[in-house]
């Protein structure tokens, strides 16, 4: 698949890297509504997507935007929308619809300070739990968390691949810092990038909503009899709004296809994670300060380690548990007032002390010095 840029080294903004990666992943439909700090994704795709035969459409709001990408996906396109907290809130109902109807699509949430309009241009990591639990009912989400411009690129492609593989919406949970920063990025030749495409039905009779963990997905207009509904449905798409068994089968399978494959989906980077005395669990922009703090610790003879989550959900709990077995303390730094901290506490089941370190307001990051002093203070 072609993007706009040639392979080689470029100097790109995080948001531009998302847009470029989307095109390479095969995205040919983007619908969105402008919002800081995500607008550059729309702007880039408005300029470049039509040149490769795609469509970029600015909708009247975020509810319509996600509605449009769900429709586009059912028409056979790989589709994406991008927003920030306020728009992400508006999209939640349709994210549930995409989950229930097993519609592959990518939703980018570039986190900014909230709740509500908050500090619109400033960074935060306050949507971690919303990305997991934002819509109602039982579901399991896939949420990816990049920490550099290059990773914005690769995790966007990965988000499309996971969406297509598991027939589910995937959320790319970026943040203002990584979205607006510019870095050098090496774009590999398109043919060297693995692209996953949804499995299509081979015959007219296949079951499109059950019968196997991830059923094949037809496109509207190909002649299949396909009814798409957010109400409880059987494997043929027929509505059953009272039958307990049909609902149980459907929702158990929908949650199961993510949970049962969690080990395959989850991704992280570990440094001295299972032998350290003090460890960080970190993600997104904050992890960049944590890496420097670890380096300072190493230079000062402190046995510190780090796990950086690239997948927030499903939560990679096994590696976190391995760290907890030997570490006396685990520090969870976040630009919110404790969110992933609770998940780390849950996963470690009291095996070690979990310490939250939090900072909000003005988009100010936790600094390496602040995190190092936490490491030092926790040594005793």
């Amino acid at each position, binding site marked *: 698949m072609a993007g706009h840029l040639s392979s080689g*080294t470029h100097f790109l903004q995080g948001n531009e890297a998302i847009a470029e990666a989307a095109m390479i992943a095969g995205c040919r439909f983007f619908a969105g509504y402008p919002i800081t700090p995500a607008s550059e994704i729309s702007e880039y795709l408005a300029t470049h997507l039509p040149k490769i035969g795609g469509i970029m459409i600015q909708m009247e709001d975020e509810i319509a935007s996600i509605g449009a990408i769900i429709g586009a996906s059912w028409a056979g396109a790989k589709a994406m929308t991008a927003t920030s907290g306020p728009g992400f809130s508006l999209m939640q109902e349709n994210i549930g619809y995409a989950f229930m109807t097993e519609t592959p699509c990518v939703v980018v949430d570039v986190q900014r300070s909230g709740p509500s309009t908050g500090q619109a*241009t400033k960074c935060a990591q306050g949507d971690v739990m919303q990305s997991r639990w934002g819509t109602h009912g039982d579901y399991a989400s896939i949420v990816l968390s990049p920490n550099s411009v290059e990773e914005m690129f690769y995790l966007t492609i990965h988000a499309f691949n996971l969406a297509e593989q598991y027939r589910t919406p995937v959320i790319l949970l970026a943040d203002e810092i990584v979205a*607006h920063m*510019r870095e*050098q990025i090496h774009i590999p030749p398109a043919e060297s990038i693995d692209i996953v495409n949804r499995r299509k039905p081979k015959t007219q009779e296949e079951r499109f909503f059950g019968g196997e963990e991830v059923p094949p997905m037809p496109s509207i207009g190909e002649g299949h009899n396909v009814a798409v509904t957010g109400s409880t449905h059987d494997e043929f798409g027929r509505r059953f709004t009272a039958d307990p068994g049909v609902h149980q089968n459907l929702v158990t399978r929908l949650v199961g296809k993510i949970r049962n494959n969690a080990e395959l989906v989850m991704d992280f980077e570990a440094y001295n994670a299972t032998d350290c005395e003090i460890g960080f669990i970190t993600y997104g922009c904050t992890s*960049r300060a944590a890496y420097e703090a670890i380096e300072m610790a190493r230079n000062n003879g402190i046995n510190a380690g780090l796990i950086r989550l690239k997948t927030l959900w499903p939560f990679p709990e096994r590696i976190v548990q391995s760290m907890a077995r030997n570490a006396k303390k685990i520090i969870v730094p976040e630009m919110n007032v404790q969110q992933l901290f609770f998940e780390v506490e849950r996963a470690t089941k009291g095996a070690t002390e979990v310490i939250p370190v939090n900072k909000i307001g003005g988009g100010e990051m936790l*600094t*390496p010095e602040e995190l190092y002093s936490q490491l030092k203070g926790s040594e005793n």
Partner: protein
Amino acid sequence: MGRIEVRICGLGGQGVVLAGQILGRAAVIDGMNVVQTQSYGAEARGSAAKSEVIVSDKQIGFPHVRKCDVLVALSQSALDAHCKDLKESGILLVDGDLVSRVPERIDQVYKLPASRVAETRFKSRMYANVVMLGALTIIAGIASKKAMKEAIEASVKRETQEANLQAFEAGLDLQA
């Protein structure tokens, strides 16, 4: 070369973000690792704005500048807010017509008439940021002249490429 941290600050509309992007792009062309970030208010014009560029031959973790080696200030309020973050050995560049009070403790101060040159030569203060980049290239030598020119061409609209390149040359001449 190790690691150089640069902050360019001023008011929204003065082109401080673009200046940082050009500098960052040029350093990438020269083969360095670069992180460039910015901060600005919700208003399109007039609020405090800053752009930061970290250039290093090693991988860059924390993306924000804490202590700068080079500070470029395009307004008095910006200098007042940011001069505390300039290293003792750091270099300060100011637009001499827009900044009158410079703290005495700073040794290396360059007062440059960037907005005046922009206004007289190019009939627009919009070019002051690129004039400043010209002077910065001579004074701090973070990126090569060749890479800076290439970065300018890649960062501005085609209609203004020629004028921006001339503004850059005018900035080089200020320190020649």
